[in-house]
Every structure is written in structure tokens, then in C-alpha cells.
């Protein structure tokens, strides 16, 4: 979620039960600002919180002008060297974040657009999805370089708008049903939760520009998903 709208975003994402305490919120706001200044990022996202045994990691990501360029990830927390495992905890942390990002970081359709020169930009005229669109999985894209786009048939591609539809949509995610879409607050908020990486919550208020995702969890994939559906 965007650092600029952190407080509102946390409110909206609170349906999953995990949030931030007021002192954390205050400190995050300040530190995200500083990160933005120091690293000269265009946008700083608060990615989420990974719960650890002793302490938690707070993760932030910085985006440059081109939204799809590889993001820099920053973390804050006490690294704990677990005695059994040889790998450094930091490496493990980074790999978990990358896995989660690749798998389940999502964005509504129309929030970014691609210019013919290559870079993607934030779409300033994105007014939000309509209610009917918000309930469909096809209105959300993975926030990463497209993988499946080339495999589409020509017929499907003909309906796409290349300036908007340049990322994979969630429709074809495997296993099917690994996303839960719900309306909360009496239809005023659509919340997507990933069942594959429990703890990832994406929220969007239809007809507004508010959207974002946050991950709060232990950083473990739910390998039992096929049994649970």
C-alpha cells in the first residue's frame, strides 16, 4: 500500500484482522518518508509485516518511475539467526518476499498504463473499478512482468487493450479458486485474500482510487490448498 495513504489503507485492510498498532503506524509514516527521500524513490509501498518468533520484520518497497521495474525491498526488524538452518535469515527473508510478490501481488485493471515507449506509469485518471467489475477476477492483474500473456489465443488478444492489459490477470491462476473475493462493509469495499499465501490481503474501494495490498503473516505458503478447497 502506498505510503502516502497509509492510514486509510490500513483501515481498509483491517478486515483480515492484522494491522498495526498506533505506535508502529506513527513510526512507519516517518520512516517511509525518510526512505523516500534517501533513496529517491518515486513511490514507497509498505509491503507488510512478516511475523517472526521473537520479533517481526516490517517490509517496505520502493518503486521508481517505471512501475514494473524491479523493486527495491527494505526491511526493518531484528534478524534472528536460527541455529539449525545454514542460510542467513536475511536471504531467506528476501526470497520469501520475492516469492510472495511474484505470486500474489496484485493491482486492479486500469491502475497502470503502458506507454508506447516502454515504461509503465500510474494512471492518474483511474477512477476505480465499478462494482460489477470489482467482483470479477479478470479485473485484477499480477503486479509483475507478464508470463502468460503470450500464450493467449489471437481471439483473446484481440479484445485486449495493449495500454492497459499488459499483465497477467488472476483468472488463470493455478490452482483455481486460490483467491477469495469478498465484499465488506456492506458492499463498499472489495477484499481479495490469497488462499495460497494466507496473510495477503488486497483491498479496493470501488469507484474510488483507493487500492493496495498488504501481507501480514509468517511467510509460509499454504501447500495444503488443494485439500482445502
Amino acid at each position: 500500500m502506498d505510503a502516502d495513504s497509509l492510514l486509510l489503507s490500513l483501515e481498509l485492510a483491517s478486515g483480515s484482522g492484522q494491522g498495526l498498532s498506533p505506535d508502529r503506524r506513527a513510526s512507519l509514516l516517518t520512516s517511509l518518508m525518510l526512505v523516500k527521500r534517501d533513496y529517491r524513490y518515486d513511490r514507497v509501498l509498505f509491503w507488510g509485516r512478516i511475523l517472526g518468533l521473537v520479533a517481526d520484520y516490517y517490509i517496505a518497497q520502493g518503486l521508481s518511475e517505471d512501475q514494473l521495474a524491479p523493486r527495491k525491498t527494505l526491511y526493518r526488524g531484528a534478524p534472528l539467526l536460527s541455529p539449525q538452518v545454514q542460510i542467513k535469515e536475511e536471504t531467506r527473508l528476501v526470497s520469501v518476499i520475492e516469492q510472495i510478490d511474484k505470486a500474489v501481488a496484485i493491482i486492479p485493471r486500469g491502475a497502470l498504463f503502458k506507454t508506447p515507449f516502454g515504461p509503465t506509469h500510474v494512471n492518474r485518471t483511474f477512477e476505480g473499478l465499478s462494482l460489477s467489475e470489482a467482483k470479477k477476477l479478470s479485473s485484477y492483474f499480477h503486479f509483475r512482468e507478464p508470463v502468460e500473456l503470450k500464450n493467449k489465443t489471437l481471439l483473446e488478444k484481440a479484445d485486449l487493450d495493449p495500454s492497459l492489459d499488459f499483465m497477467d490477470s488472476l483468472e488463470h491462476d493455478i490452482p483455481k479458486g486460490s483467491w477469495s473475493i469478498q465484499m465488506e462493509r456492506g458492499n463498499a469495499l472489495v477484499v481479495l485474500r490469497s488462499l495460497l499465501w494466507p496473510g495477503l490481503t488486497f483491498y479496493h474501494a470501488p469507484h474510488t482510487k483507493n487500492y493496495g495490498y498488504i501481507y501480514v503473516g509468517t511467510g509460509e505458503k499454504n501447500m495444503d490448498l488443494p485439500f482445502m478447497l
Partner: protein
Amino acid sequence: MGDLPPYPERPAQQPPGRKTSQASQRRHSRDQAQALGADPEERQQIPPDAQRNAPGWSQRGSLSQQENLLMPQVFQAEEARLGGMEYPSVNTGFPSEFQPQPYSDESRMQVAELTTSLMLQRLQQGQSSLFQQLDPTFQEPPVNPLGQFNLYQTDQFSEGAQHGPYLRDDPALQFLPSELGFPHYSAQVPEPEPLELAVQNAKAYLLHTSINCDLSLYEHLVNLLTKILNQRPEDPLSVLESLNRTTQWEWFHPKLDTLRDDPEMQPTYKMAEKQKALFIRSGGGTEGEQEMEEEVGETPVPNIMETAFYFEQAGVGLSSDESFRIFLAMKQLVEQQPIHTCRFWGKILGIKRSYLVAEVEFREGEEEAEEEEVEEMTEGGEVMEAHGEEEGEEDEEKAVDIVPKPVWRPPPVIPKEESRSGANKYLYFVCNEPGLPWTRLPHVTPAQIVNARKIKKFFTGYLDTPVVSYPPFPGNEANYLRAQIARISAATQVSPLGFYQFNEEEGDEEEEGGAGRDSYEENPDFEGIPVLELVDSMANWVHHTQHILPQGRCTWVNPLQKTEEEEDLEEEEEKADEGPEEVEQEVGPPLLTPLSEDAEIMHLAPWTTRLSCSLCPQYSVAVVRSNLWPGAYAYASGKKFENIYIGWGHKYSPESFNPALPAPIQQEYPSGPEIVEMSDPTVEEEQALKAAQEQALGATEEEEEGEEEEEGEETDD
């Protein structure tokens, strides 16, 4: 243009681009022309509804006359102005011809008038480099002018290339799309000049409505330009595409309809209505004062806002307005049901909807009425079955051949716990969202708990969904939900040491089967444990719910203890087949066991403690988080504590879930010397037997004749 390859190359890639530049050209020069045409008031915009219906065509026909009249004046001026341009005449065709038609939007016109002069000045300052020549190769009929328009627009602007002389105005080319309009047109205008004809062609082409919708390119451009002029964005060029898209969208979603409700928003409004009902206090105005007094007294509704505040300090919980709504919903529940105490247990997330769970205790005596109804139904069923068994046995005894009785006996059903004890100590109500009615969950049976331990399924959010699993779960989602709630409560409801204490009256421990005491009460002398101590040691927290035994109950019941009915039946049956059935008594940790005694999960501590705020320990709250059931939290501060669960409702296991294997294939009945399975007779054998029997009948009629033959035939089997 390099990033367009993934999509099929459209043959019309170039021309639409040209079209747009042509359109832009027309825009700019139209404005120019208008200023020159010495009548700024003639500059009018085409109202969007101009071309909607067939009658519109005829109007256009008549108006083109005016066009013709105006054209010559403007034409010359244009030529002088745009020297290098080859096509000035085209640009001048449009202004002011639709004079008599009313506008849909007066204000637009006025604003536009004021601004055109500014624009003209800018244009005149030599931005003619922006103008591009029209493509000589353009021959494509407009397939989807609106769709292609915005895709490739930016290319054109960036290129700035000059193109050769344009032969576009060949009327023959223009003819294709606008055949509709032409009959009228040609009937009224005797002999237009070729240039005028070209202009009209171009215009007619622009006015041609797109195949997909009622919108024509002309109207769309008008809308777009008006929008730009009204809004005056900072860098209109870069936002041109988005504006175009927005204009298109708005065309199809006019916000003019105040009579009909927006169908999309209906569910939202309905939900809002329901939640509004929550906020209305029951009772009228005059009774308001009395109500105030009543409400100030004790209510069973807990102080959810306070709990939410403390949990928020810990970083857990729902947002504050959500909590408030839950509070109101619980208040509603308390009004509807005879409730003695109640507590917000937590939220269980589901795939389609989530559950809000309230843990309640009914007042004495209230609950039993409902329970009896349920029990009668089940008991009636059991009585029926008993009768069935007895009748079956009698029939069997009468039969000549006694069918061997199966050795297998179904395992005895473990009776469920009584209400208000063990796992059924509390009643649970669920609802999906505050404002929706609360549903009561049935009591949990030990079989359900045992099965719930073997499966792992997501909740869908609908209570009557069947739970499809192996081993088959005895119940639907409501039962599964109740079983999980029972397990979570038993494992994660904790309180600071000393908050609860055992009752002063102690029963004989042996009577209860050594299971320990199962009741506790609040300790009035509890002074609170300092927060730092709570965080340091797990021994300062205790479980205050009973542990559920492997059997599925909190108090152990020997399944072999037979009731009187069963003993009577047994006397009739053989007792030899019982087999080894000694069952050991199951024992679990007693109530009020400290958390330090909890088993580890593969080297992982089962609980994690945290101070809510490390920067100000004197005011912070101790938080305990369960690692075994992710989502279970408890906080304690001073004399207050509370538990909550917000999560998916599943246990954490470091290993993957291994579903139970199906049962082994059953053995066939063993063949022994006394029982041999015979092979079925073939058709020939049956026929031979039949023939033999007939002959036997025939032979007995003859009495003693042919005895030898009978014997011989009977041995043919």
C-alpha cells in the same frame, strides 16, 4: 512503435493514425476559421443527439445548404492562412452549419467562445508543424474509429513526419460509409463544387456512427474537446488518451437518470439499510428517558470498544467502525435472545463470506426448551431403529437357514456432552456481517471433533454447505465451524494466572473419573500481574477452558459402558464376538494449566509474547500470540484481559497435510471346509436339470416304471 508487436498488426495501423491527425487538424483549423469567419456566434457545437435517429439525416441534408453558403468566404481566408497546407477546405466545412439546432449545453458554448480566441492566437504563432498531411494511402473504411483512435495516437504526435500530397478527397473514396446520407443530400443540393463535396463527404464520414454504438466520431470529438476546454488539464497531450477513454465511458453512463436506481448499487444500499436499523434505538421519543435509565444498568453486552482498543495497541483486530458495528449487532442479539453473558469470540474468514462469532451463555432454564425439541427428534429416531433390530432378529430366527451374523459391529457412538459443560459450555451465534440476523450453531458432538481433526477445509461462508472430505465429516459447514470453534477455544483461551480460581467446594475427584475440576470462578482478590512479568514467562498465563481429549470430549466416557437397553439386547445375541475391547481412560491436562506446559510444535514455541509498545513499557499491554492456531491472540493489562481469534480457522502444522488413507479393502468371506462357494451353473446345466426334474415328475406318475432311468438322469448334475 516497438511495443506493439505482441498484438496482431492491424492493417489499418497507419491510417487511423492519420485519421486522428486529420481530426486534430480539423479541430485546430476549425477554430481558426471560425475566428476568421467574422461571426463568432456562429460557432456552434454539434449537439450530441444530432445524429441519433434517422430523421437526423434529413436535417443534415437541409443544413448542408448553409454550409455551402458559408464555405466560399471561409474558404479563401483559410487558404491565405494555411499556406503550405494542401487541404484547407476540408477544415472549414463544419463550423456553424447547425445553427438552428438547439444545444444540449449552453454553457459549453459560451466557454468555448471565450477560449477559442486564445487558442487561435496560439495556433497562429506557428504551431503548424504539428499539423500533418493526410495520408495518401488512406483507403480503409472505418472499422472502429474509436477503438483504434487512442491506441496509436501518441505515435503520430511523436513522429512529426511530413507526408506527401494527399489525394484523399476523392469523393469515390468517401462514398462508402456515408451512403445513407447521400440520397437526401444529392436531392437537395444541385451541383456542389468538388471541394465542398469533399468537405461534406468528410463530414458525413465523421458523422457516421460506429458499428458498436450510437456514437459517431464527430460527436465524440466534440465531447472530448469540450471536456478538455472545460477542465483545462495541465498537459493535455499526455492525458489525451485517458481523457478520451473517460469521455467514451461517460457517454454510455450518463448521470442524468434521477428516476431509476442504479442497479449496481442496489446491494450496497440494501446493506446500508440493514445497518441503519442497527443504529436506531428501539422505542419512541417519549420513552427515551426511561430507556436511558435502563440501559445504563447492567447489560450482558461486553464493552467491545474497549477490547478493540487494547487489541489495536497490539496490532490486532478490526477497524474501529467495524468494531462499533459489531457492538451494535451484539446488542441486537442480546435483545433478541435470553442471554446471560456474551462475548465477542472473533471472526473466521471464509472464501465467499466471513463469520462473526459471538459466544453466549443463556440464562438458566431458557435454553433447555430448545434443547428438548432437538433431542426428541433424535431419540425418536433411535427408538425406531431399536424396533427395527428386534423385528429383524425375529425374522431371522424363523428362517430355516440362519444367515451367519457379521462379526463387525459399528463402534459405539460416544455421547455428546451436555449443554453447559465441556465443549458445549457456551453457545455460539454467527452472522456474516453486522446487521444480518444471527444464527445459532448446534452443539458439537465428539464424532464431529474427531473428524474435524482429520480434515482441513476452508469455510465458504454459507452454513449449509456440505463438507466434502475423506473421512466423511458428519455434518455440514455449520457443524464443522462449531467443531473448529470448540477446538480453538479449548486450545487458545487463556488468562493471566490468578484471574480464575477453583471453586471452594471440591467434589470427590474419583467421581469425576480423575479428569479434574471443570468449573472455576473469578478470583475477587486478583491484583493483576505486571506486564513485564506477563511477557517474560509463559507460566503466568493459564488455560481456562478444558482440553479436549482424543475422544472428542472434555470428560472421558467409557464407550463400553452399556446402558440397560443394550444389555438386554445382548443377552439374546452371542457375546463371543466382542473381541478385545479394553479401552484406556484418556487423560488430559487439568484446567488452569499454565501455558509453559504446552507441547512444542517441532522445536517451535507454541506461544509468542510481545509487549505492545517497546518504546513506552509502562503503558503497554502484554500480548500473547498462538503459533499453533495462527490468529489467536490474548492481551492482558492490569486487571483486564481478553481473548480473540481472527483467522481462517485452521491449525498450524509444520508438515503438510496428509489426508487419511482410504480403509483397506475388506476381506472376502473366508472359504472353509464347511462353507464352499459354488460356481453358478451354466445354462446347459440348468436346462439339463430342468429337463431332469420334468422327467422325474413324469416318472412319479408312472410310479415304479423306469426307476433306473431316473437315477441315471439325476446324476447328470
